[in-house]
Structure formats: structure tokens, C-alpha cells
């Protein structure tokens, strides 16, 4: 056990799985860096450095820098997964889903079903998401609801370094295609992370804190903000349960429903756009299965239905804030 960053946690998970299983390969743009140049090799290790050091250990046969051709290399990951490899492809930002959408949603997601259960597609697509760094409209989206919508894909959104390592290890060992979301602003987050490999199963929510008054479900980067808001409210005697679903597909519906049945109140904090987002989806599930337990209307805390703006003050206003979450908690509690 030692303190590790989100970046280091991801790096270790990939490294350990590559050591364990020779069929695991990595591919993506500048995931090593310096390809074809006369200068430093492994100069980048991916745009935020999570794969640094892996090319020197495993060679360019297993750590493949690619041209800027998302359709080709994400599709190649799907094709390779279908035929014996276990690729971890990096789609630099999920915004680029627009470039390679077909290979993800019509190809890798569907093989198993369309082929009557005869295929497996064990690949991981690692991808950055989220606002808060001035990336503006084409580099900051939280598109996990779009991917969650597609049957055949598993969707993972770790909320801390510990979670990242265990979920990444599981993602690589998993036999289905996994889209793995990493928040743009969380790579330097640090906490205690075991040195040895471990897995965190998909579809099992984590209870971050327990309280009798309100159930908060928060996703990814929002888990930290929801925790801060809940801790603050505890000082006023309002006790919240905070659930981190970890994966939106599969989704731990049972844990959410069970908790709402106890607290009678639900807030969902989601960085994705509000329409057809996770907040809407989880609200619908609770409305359907725990309607009678609800003591107050469900609250969704999300950004507005707008692209992510560039100017720092607008971007700050765009993102759900600790304050905004506290306001929602007071609202469902009926206090000022």
C-alpha cells in the first residue's frame, strides 16, 4: 500500500495485466510518443502520461502508437479482440467518439449478440471526459450516457485512484467490450492504493458514506463534490447516504432502490447533459421501483442543456457545484 495518483493507479493496472497476459496490447495516439522521430522515445506516455514507461518495458510490438485515425485503430482493437488479443485502446477524449462511433456502437458492441453468442470482444477503450480545465465544447463532454445507452457495452467511471486501479484491472480481464472513462481533472488526485493487483466487480455500487435522510447518487468526478456537500450538511444534522455506482452499465439498481427505500429521498449528481443523462435514467428507475417510499420529489443536479463553455467563469457556473448540491439537499429536506 502506498499513496498513488490516479495516473499511477491506471499505469500499474495496465502494467500488471500486460505482465500477466501476453495478449494484452495497448494502442492509441502518442501513448508512448516519439514514433518515427530521432528524439526521445516514450516522450509522452499518452496525453496525460498514464502509459508512460510501458513501451520501454513491453516494446513497440505491444504498445502501439497510431496515426490520428480513430476509426482505424479503435476498429482494429475490436477486430483484434474478436480474434485473440486483449487490446486496450486509448480514444484520447470521448468527444472523438464522433470520429469512430461506428466501430464502437455498431461493431464491438454488437458482435456477440449478432453472432448468436459465438463471439467475444474483450477490449477496453480508455477515454478522457469532463470539464474544468478550459477545454471548451469539443474536449470536455461527459458522454457516458450515450455509451451506456448502447446494449453490449460496459461503461466504467472510476471516482478515485483506488477505484481506477481495481476497475481497470477488471476491465482488462473482462470478456466484454468496456468503455473506461477517466476525468480530465482527476489525474493528480492521490490516495492509498494497494501495490498488488485487485479487481473491483462491475455493477456493484460503493457506499461512500451512510446517512438516514437522503440518498445521493453521484458519478465520477461528482462523487468528490457530493461527498464534500454531504459532509458539510452533516454539520447541520442532515445525514446523507452517498452511492458511487462505479459502472453505469451494468448499473447497481438494487443498491440505489434499497437505499431510497430507507431514506425516502433521492438526489442524482451527474456531470452529463441533463436530457437522457444518467440522472434522468436513475430517477426513472427509482420512480418506477420506489415511488411509494419517496417523501419528496427527486432532484437531478446536472449542468444546463448547453455545450461546455470556454470562459472560466462560465465553465465554473456550468458544472454542478458543492453549493448547488447542498441547495438540492436542503430542497429535498424541505429546509432553508
Amino acid at each position, binding site marked *: 500500500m502506498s499513496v498513488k495518483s490516479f495516473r499511477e493507479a491506471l499505469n500499474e493496472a495496465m502494467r500488471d495485466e500486460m505482465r500477466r497476459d501476453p495478449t494484452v496490447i495497448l494502442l492509441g495516439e502518442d501513448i508512448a510518443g*516519439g*514514433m518515427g522521430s530521432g528524439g526521445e522515445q516514450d516522450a509522452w506516455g499518452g496525453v496525460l502520461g498514464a502509459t508512460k514507461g510501458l513501451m520501454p518495458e513491453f516494446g513497440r510490438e505491444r504498445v502501439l502508437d497510431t496515426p490520428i485515425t480513430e476509426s482505424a485503430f479503435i476498429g482494429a482493437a475490436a477486430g483484434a479482440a474478436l480474434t485473440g488479443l486483449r487490446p486496450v485502446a486509448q480514444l484520447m477524449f470521448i468527444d472523438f467518439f464522433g470520429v469512430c462511433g461506428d466501430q464502437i456502437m455498431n461493431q464491438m458492441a454488437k458482435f456477440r449478440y449478432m453472432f448468436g453468442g459465438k463471439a467475444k470482444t474483450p477490449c477496453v477503450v480508455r477515454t478522457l471526459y469532463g470539464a474544468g480545465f478550459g477545454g471548451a465544447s469539443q474536449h470536455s463532454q461527459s458522454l457516458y450516457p450515450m455509451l451506456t445507452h448502447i446494449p453490449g457495452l460496459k461503461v466504467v467511471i472510476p471516482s478515485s485512484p483506488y477505484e481506477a486501479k481495481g476497475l481497470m484491472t477488471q476491465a482488462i480481464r473482462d470478456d466484454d467490450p468496456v468503455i473506461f472513462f477517466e476525468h480530465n481533472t482527476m489525474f493528480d488526485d492521490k490516495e492509498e492504493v494497494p501495490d498488488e493487483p485487485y479487481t473491483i466487480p462491475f455493477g456493484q455500487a460503493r457506499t461512500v458514506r451512510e446517512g438516514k435522510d437522503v440518498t445521493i447518487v453521484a458519478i465520477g468526478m461528482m462523487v468528490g463534490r457530493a461527498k464534500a456537500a454531504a459532509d458539510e450538511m452533516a454539520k447541520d444534522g442532515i445525514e446523507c447516504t452517498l452511492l458511487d455506482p462505479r459502472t453505469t452499465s451494468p448499473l447497481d439498481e438494487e443498491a440505489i432502490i434499497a437505499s431510497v427505500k430507507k431514506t425516502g429521498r433521492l438526489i442524482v449528481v451527474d456531470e452529463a447533459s441533463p436530457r437522457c443523462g444518467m440522472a434522468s435514467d436513475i430517477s426513472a428507475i427509482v420512480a418506477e421501483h420506489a415511488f411509494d417510499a419517496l417523501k419528496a420529489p427527486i432532484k437531478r443536479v446536472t449542468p444546463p442543456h448547453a455545450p461546455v463553455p470556454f470562459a472560466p467563469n462560465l465553465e465554473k457556473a456550468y458544472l454542478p457545484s458543492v453549493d448547488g448540491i447542498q441547495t438540492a439537499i436542503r430542497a429535498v429536506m424541505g429546509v432553508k
Partner: protein
Amino acid sequence: MKIDKQGLLEGYRTMRTIREFEERVHKEFMTGQIPGFVHLYAGEEASATAVCQQLGEHDTVASTHRGHGHAIAKGCDVKGMMKEIYGRADGLCAGKGGSMHIADLDVGMLGANGIVGAGSPLACGAALSAKTLKTGGLSVSFFGDGAFNQGTTAESMNFARVYDLPVLFVLEDNGYAESTSSSWSIGGNNPVRRAEGFGIEGTRVDGHDYFAVYRAAQEAVEAIRSGTGPRFIHIEFTRYYGHFEGDASSYKPLDEVKDERRYLDALKFFRARTTGGGMLKIEDLDAIDKEVETLIDASVKEAKAAPPPDLSTLTTDVYLSY
């Protein structure tokens, strides 16, 4: 090649404006006041400048993440650009876009772009508009060596060919896409031949030589205006700074970068060529340098002092009506 003294002075002013703009953004970025990331065009000035000098009000350009040079050369307001980069209310895009999304349709600038390879389809669309509406306009797609490999670029070249669209494809090859060498990433390592594979005539030029770019662009634009469809130019040069601010460029071998500002500088080359032969006077160029410096300095000062967008604009302009 046809260019008069006025044209030369304009070309120099544009190149100097781009250089000064980028050098200043580089400096200011280090103070931490510029949000997000910026990709600088320093070293590549001759391309945007000499190509855009062939264009008029009905012509459009589609740009890239490294878009400041294209925006300046196509006539975007420099002060409005600087304010945009600082995320100000009266920036060119109201502070909503930032460096990577600078656009001004009024001057035919279809936008910098955060998506590598997104520009060429848009340029085809603008060319389709020009052709259908008979404006006489053409469109230019500037794209990098990395973008050259995207499917969208290949598809656009084919689309432009089959419909004889008035598009000039300009491959800006600065040797790298992030840290990846273009001599490796461009399979076959012969961009002109790739264009020819699509039935598009192409040529390769040294991008540090304003005159070479000018000649190639003038020839290509004249051909496009005569109605013979798309053309292709492969421009080779170096980018002085990292991929974005903060990138140390360690993947570049030392001997490649050591003397680049000495030997690979379009502005220096331009000065030597024009003043040595007596075409232009050194004083005229010095005067331009001064004016540009003043303009850029004022634009930074004004940008820093300008107010941020009003929070009410967070949800405006998502639609025209809703």
C-alpha cells in the same frame, strides 16, 4: 508569380502580426492567465499568409486547433482574437470558444477546430455553397500532417474531386503530430502522390519560403477559379514551440531544433530577399514591426482589462429558437 510592392508589404505585415501574436501568447500563457490550451503557429507564418493573400471576400478557410495564423491571415480582428483567448465577453466568440474555436464567418473564417480532420468536410461544404450559389468563391482547408491521415480528409478529397468542388487542400506538414513524426505516420511518405491518387494535382513547397508558397498558392487558386476542381499543396516547415504550451518537444532530435530560428525563419528569409534586392526598404519593414508590436501590446492590455462574459450567457446561443 505576380505580386506588387503593396502585396509584399501586406504579406510581411501579416506574417509579423502572426509571429508577434504567438510570441506574446507564449509569454502570457506562462503567467497562468490564459485558460485551456493553446497551440502556437510560430514558424509556420508563410503558409496562412501567402495562401490567404490569394483569397477574397467570397472565399472561406477551414482551420485547425493551431488556428491563430489562419484567423489573422483571413482578416479576423486581432484584438477580438486576443480577448477570445482570455475568455472575455467581447472576444470574437463571446468567450465561449477560446483559442481552439476562433471563428468569424463575416470574414470567411469557418473556425479553428478541436477535432483533428474535421476541417476538410466543412471546406467541401463551403465550396458546395459557393458553387451552388454561384458566388465565385472557393474554400481552403488547412490541415496538419496528422490530420492528413484521418478518413475525413481522404473522403473529402474524393468528394471534392467527384464534384469538381473549388477546394484548395493545404497540408501543413510541421514534421509532427503531437510527438509522432510525419515521415512515419504518413504511409508511403509521399503526400503529393496520395493526392494524385484522388485525381488531384498537387505540389510540394518549402514553407519557410514565403515566395515559394505564394507562387504555388497563386497557381493553384487560379486553376481552381478556372473551374477545374480541387488542388493540393504540401507545405513543409517547422513549429518553433511544442505541440501545445507546456510540451517540451523532447521527441525532436537536438540537431533538428538547434538552429531552426536561424535558418528556418520565413520572416528573416523574406527580409533578406526583399531588402537585399532593393524591392523593399528596411525602414518600411522596421516601421511595420513597430506598428505590429504596438497593436499586439494593446490587444493584450485590452484583453486583460476586459470583463468576462455575463453568467446569463451560459445558456444563450445554444439554438436560435427553442
